[in-house]
């Protein structure tokens, strides 16, 4: 089976009903997207397929049509994506385990709404659970990324 992940073609030996997450993590060695719940209830596995956020832990790899973008594909070389840079500047992460998913959801949000309100942030990010309670800094980082033109 062929996939395009973070701009690179990859070839994997996966049954079509294998969740995209495990194809990425265990077959392709792309461990940026995290396993948290397996039922799309925490958002740690979030990746983009054709620019839209999906929970890779439940999406069958056989259903993937289009390019996959993971947290590992956001930066260009040493230059962080503006959303990652905002996360760094606001010092968001604590344990950090959910942050790959948080960042991917924020990237998807900002791609559609360049300057989201608090309400719009809440509506986009409610599926991403953080047990460390970094939400106030996530909000601040999304606002900062918006100011820095992440959605442009």
């Amino acid at each position: 089976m062929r996939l395009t992940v973070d701009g690179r073609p990859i070839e994997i030996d996966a049954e079509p009903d294998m969740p995209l997450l495990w194809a990425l993590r265990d077959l392709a060695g792309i461990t940026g997207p995290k396993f948290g719940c397996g039922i799309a209830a925490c958002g740690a596995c979030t990746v983009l397929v054709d620019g839209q956020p999906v929970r890779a832990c439940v999406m069958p790899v056989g259903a993937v049509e289009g390019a996959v973008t993971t947290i590992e594909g956001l930066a260009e070389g040493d230059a962080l994506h503006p959303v990652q840079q905002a996360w760094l500047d606001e010092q968001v992460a604590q344990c950090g385990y959910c942050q790959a998913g948080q960042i991917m959801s924020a990237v998807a949000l900002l791609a559609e709404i360049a300057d989201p309100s608090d309400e719009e942030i809440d509506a986009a990010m409610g599926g991403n659970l953080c047990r460390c309670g970094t939400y106030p800094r996530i909000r601040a980082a999304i606002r900062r990324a918006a100011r820095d033109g992440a959605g442009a």
Partner: protein
Amino acid sequence: MSRAGTITRRTLLVAAVAVAGGVAFGYYAYRKPYPNPLEAGLEAGEAAFNPYVTIGSDDTVTIIVPRAEMGQGVETTLAALVAEELDVALERVRIEHGPASPAYANIAMLKEGVPFPQFDESWLAELARDGIAVFGKFLGLQATGGSSSTVDAFVKMRRAGAAARETLKAAAGKTLNVAASSLQTADGRVTDPATGRSVSYGEVAQAAARLDPPAEPALKPREAWRLLGTALPRTDMRAKVTGAPIYGVDVALPDMLHATVRMNPHLGAPMRGMDAQAAEAMPGVVKVVPIAHRLGHGFAVVARSTWHAFRGADAVEADWAPATYPADDDGLWAAIEAAADESGFSLRDDGDVDVAFADAPRERLVEAEYRAPWLAHACMEPMNATARLADGRLEVWAPNQVPTLVQKLCAEAVGLPAEACTVHTTYLGGGFGRRLETDYAVYAALVAAETDGRPVKVTWTREEDTTHDAYRPAAYGRLRARLGDDGLPAAIDMKIASPSIMASMVPRIFPGVPLAGPDRSLVDGTFNQPYAVPDYRVEGVPVPLDLPVGYWRSVGYSYNAFFHECFLDEIAAAGGHDPVALRRRLMQPWPTAVNVVDTLAAMSGWQTPPGDGRARGIAFSACFGSWSGAVVEVAEGERGVRIERVWLAADVGTALDPRNIEAQLVSGAVFGLSAATGQEITFAEGRVAQSNFHDYDAMRIHQCPRFEVAVLETAPEMGGVGEIGTPPAIAALVNAVSALTGERLRRLPLSHAVTFA
């Protein structure tokens, strides 16, 4: 009753543990340091100065931070302690967790366990703290918990940096042919200010490491700090925003297999048998391995991917023996409430409580019962570990809070001595006390014994994680107070019944070791609070239930602050006092506590009523060496109650990284508010009823209030920060919602009584 009179009943649990651990001790042996665990693994050109610092001839400075980085920012703060004294830039050093070693024992964590309030400076309390430090040294327990890492490291890691600096200066003095005392250090170089000549640390490292370090090198005064006391960029942040492979679940080794475990959901009970035929025939499944260990009984499925293992495990039919504890909540709560009729241990018994209540008129009595549920930790990263057993050596990669215990238990499980086991501690995707347990690592070691030398990563499903925790114990409080004519409490009598965590945990780690003395954590947050009341008794009753319970962020304070601070609000209401005024009044002997309450009152505008459909609550807790309080404001909304604003104030004595402390206070509060609003583990048919985030969720971003935080530094001693936001946030929320609804709420989670938006 005098304190000395009760000392025999306060025999310290850890004492029994240390003796049974097979160590003979004396003062000489106590003073003798453990060997430096870094000596074994040095690279070419690298020199080890002490267990915390190595410097390579290429100028690479490596700092060992031997504590679990589980989100609390300990890696950054502890590395800064060394870097501060060593005069190197934090962003230029390499930071490693380092090996499992008793050289990294956490003494402060054990000191916090002595049965005295943190503000008790009596000779007896100090004697106990010194005594526990000796035991701790021999126990060699390398652990991250009890909000103790920074307190424990504050002097010793600065000394490690300073000692290395002084020997570098001594070696440079010989090279430059000047007196070491005239040299200066900055940014990884030693300079002679007279001539401007300098050498880099790397150039003199080998020579310096051979010198005897000064026993007690001078530490910089606070005014000279460059790093400490400032908001430092976290050293782990870039890895965490780029998806780097830093967690236990990300471990990847050549030829690695993947696996998962399913253990008996009737916790602790055996597996009578299993039918694994269908699973073993499934594509991708390598084998099914039974597991029988005192920590759990069940099986592992080894496969080519984690998903194949999960699928295979679903296909195994296991015959689970029933558990020994009561099968459902009714039975468990009956056992807890029955225990409250028994007598227990007392760590506070001031005045004569029985006399005070003997003639109390009804209208001066306040009585209440409080209940807090079992809770799971629900770390974002499910339990996991990777292990390889080959050529008589066991290697374990595990996100864990107790490397030396992981080493001991994993080695034992596969019949090896501890020295034959190497533990690699990864970053933790959340800990909260769950990873003070070792089950995930032991199971990985046992599975690795069945894979012919191939490494195997064992990842639990979320369902397995939720249903096989060491739970925050349920707790029951039976509380009464007698008011004086002034409406102030003249007598308080509290009885707390809950399963003892020590009684549950010690047999998991040290089977057969006799337990002695009370488990202080059962009454933490009640007996040791800074309130002056003439007759004051707190009794703790351990409930004998054979159900695994463990340390959950803030431990006993997580339920006792709720009991104590909400009951205090009931006392205030009955006596006609404002909750802030009552607390200030009772706290008068402890100005640090009064200051926290005053700060909160000012920040939250306590004197200004919050308006229609809104209410505020306050709570305070002296915990983990700090003084912590919260005010919570809630509002009635169309879809339910909303937590709108939270003010936190904590006096931590010395704030090494104020921005990180703010993050920790908010984090602890969110953790507590998550639990108080809706979390609850219940039991049915001998197993946990909840399984995943659909029925055991936590606060989400749209439910998260606005926070304002004050970090205070007036207390004489440095306190911890990782857990102190949790206890007062829970209690302040309950006080706020009770004020909003006009009905006193005495049971958690609050979702039993109100709907949250």
